[in-house]
C-alpha cells in the first residue's frame, strides 16, 4: 500500500467511516446548538476546520518535543492540550480581528465556543498521544503528516454533517411534528436516521 493511498484512507476513515458526530457522538453540544440555521453552521464549520488543524499541529510538537522527552506526558497531557487549545483559540481570534474584518464577522462569535468543543481535544488526543487512536483498520504511526491528515478528516466530517443537518432542521421547522416531539426530540430522531445512513460507510475499503 503506497503512502498517498494510506493518507487517503486515513482521511476517508476519519471523515465518513468513523464520523465524529454521527458514529462517535463527539461534539454533539455545538452540533445541536448551532445547527438551527444554515448560515451559523457554515461559520462554525470554517472555524472548526481551521482551529482543529492548528491545535493538532501544536499539540503534536508539544507532545513530541516537550512532554514525551521530559517524561511528563502521561499525567500532564490533559492540562497541556487543553491550554494549547484555549490559548490558540484566543490567539486566532486576535489575529483574525486585526487582519480580516469580514472573516472576523463570519467566524468571530464561534471561536470562543470552540474551546469547549470536544472534537478539538478528541482529535488532538487521538492523533498525537499513543493509546487513543480509534479502531480504524489502518496502521497509524503518530507521524506529523498523519496527525494533520487525520485531524483534517475529522474536521471535514464534522462540517459536512453539521451543514447537511442544519439544512434538514430548517425544513423540519415547517413539518407537522407530533406535539411532544417538537424541537429537540425530533432533531434527535432525525439525527438517528442520519446516523443510520452513515453506518452504510462502515466496511468501505476495508476500514
Amino acid at each position: 500500500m503506497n503512502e498517498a493511498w494510506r493518507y487517503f484512507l486515513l482521511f476517508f476513515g476519519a471523515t465518513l467511516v468513523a464520523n465524529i458526530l454521527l458514529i462517535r457522538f463527539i461534539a454533539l453540544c455545538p452540533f445541536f446548538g448551532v445547527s438551527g440555521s444554515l448560515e451559523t453552521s457554515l461559520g462554525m464549520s470554517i472555524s472548526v476546520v481551521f482551529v482543529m488543524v492548528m491545535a493538532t499541529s501544536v499539540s503534536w510538537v508539544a507532545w513530541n518535543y516537550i512532554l514525551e522527552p521530559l517524561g511528563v506526558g502521561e499525567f500532564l497531557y490533559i492540562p497541556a492540550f487543553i491550554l494549547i487549545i484555549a490559548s490558540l483559540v484566543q490567539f486566532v481570534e486576535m489575529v483574525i480581528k486585526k487582519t480580516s474584518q469580514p472573516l472576523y464577522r463570519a467566524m468571530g462569535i464561534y471561536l470562543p465556543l470552540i474551546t469547549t468543543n470536544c472534537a478539538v481535544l478528541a482529535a488532538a488526543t487521538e492523533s498525537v498521544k499513543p493509546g487513543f487512536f480509534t479502531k480504524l483498520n489502518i496502521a497509524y504511526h503518530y507521524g506529523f503528516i498523519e496527525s494533520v491528515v487525520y485531524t483534517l478528516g475529522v474536521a471535514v466530517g464534522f462540517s459536512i454533517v453539521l451543514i447537511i443537518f442544519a439544512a434538514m432542521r430548517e425544513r423540519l421547522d415547517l413539518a407537522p411534528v407530533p406535539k411532544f416531539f417538537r424541537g429537540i426530540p425530533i432533531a434527535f430522531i432525525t439525527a438517528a436516521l442520519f446516523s443510520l445512513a452513515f453506518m452504510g460507510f462502515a466496511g468501505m475499503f476495508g476500514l
Partner: protein
Amino acid sequence: MEKERTLWGEFSKGFITTNPLLVLMVGLCSALAISTKVENCIFMGLAVIFVLTCSNVIISLIRNFIPDQIRIPIYIVVIASFVTIVDLTLKTIPAVYERLGVWIPLIVVNCIILARAEGYASDAKVSHALMDGLGIGLGYTIVLLIMSTFRELLGTGKIVMFNTTIVTLGTDKMPVIFILFPGAFITFALLSALLQWYQQHRKPKVKEG
C-alpha cells in the same frame, strides 16, 4: 430548618428541573456514546460526580481571588487536574479504561462541568456548590443509567455487569439497532419527548394549586 431545605433544594434540582442532559442539554456527547452498557455508565457517572463536585468546591473556595479576565483558563486548569486524577485512577482497571477510552480526557471539555463552574460555582457558597455538584452529577448519572438499561436490555436481551448476567430476557433475537449509534439518538429523543409531556401535563395543575 430553612437552611437544610435550601441545601436539599440545591441537591435535588439536578434530577429534573435543571437536569444537565434533558433540560440544560449539556454533556450529551459522553451520555450518548457511553450508554451502550450499564457497567460503563456506573464508572462514567462516578467519574463525572467526582470531578464535578471537587471542581465546584475548589472554584467556590477561590472564587474571590480569581481575576475576572482569566477565569476560564483557571477553571479549566482546576478541572483538568481532577480529570487527570480520574484518568490515572481508572487506568488501574484496564478493561474499563479501554472501553471508556478518549471519554475520560474529554471530561475536561464536558460542557456540564464548565457550565456549572462558570454559571453556578463562581458565585455560590461552598456548601451550596458542593450540593449542586453532587445533585447535577447524580442527575447525569440517573439519565445515563436509564438510557443504558433501556439500550442494553433491548439491544442484547440481557444486562451483564462485572461478568455476571443480572437480567435476561431469555432470547438473543433482539433489535441490535438499540446498541448501535442510531439507538442512542432514538432513546434520547424518547426520553426528551417524555419530559416535554410531563412538563406540559404538570403546568395546569400548578396553576390550579
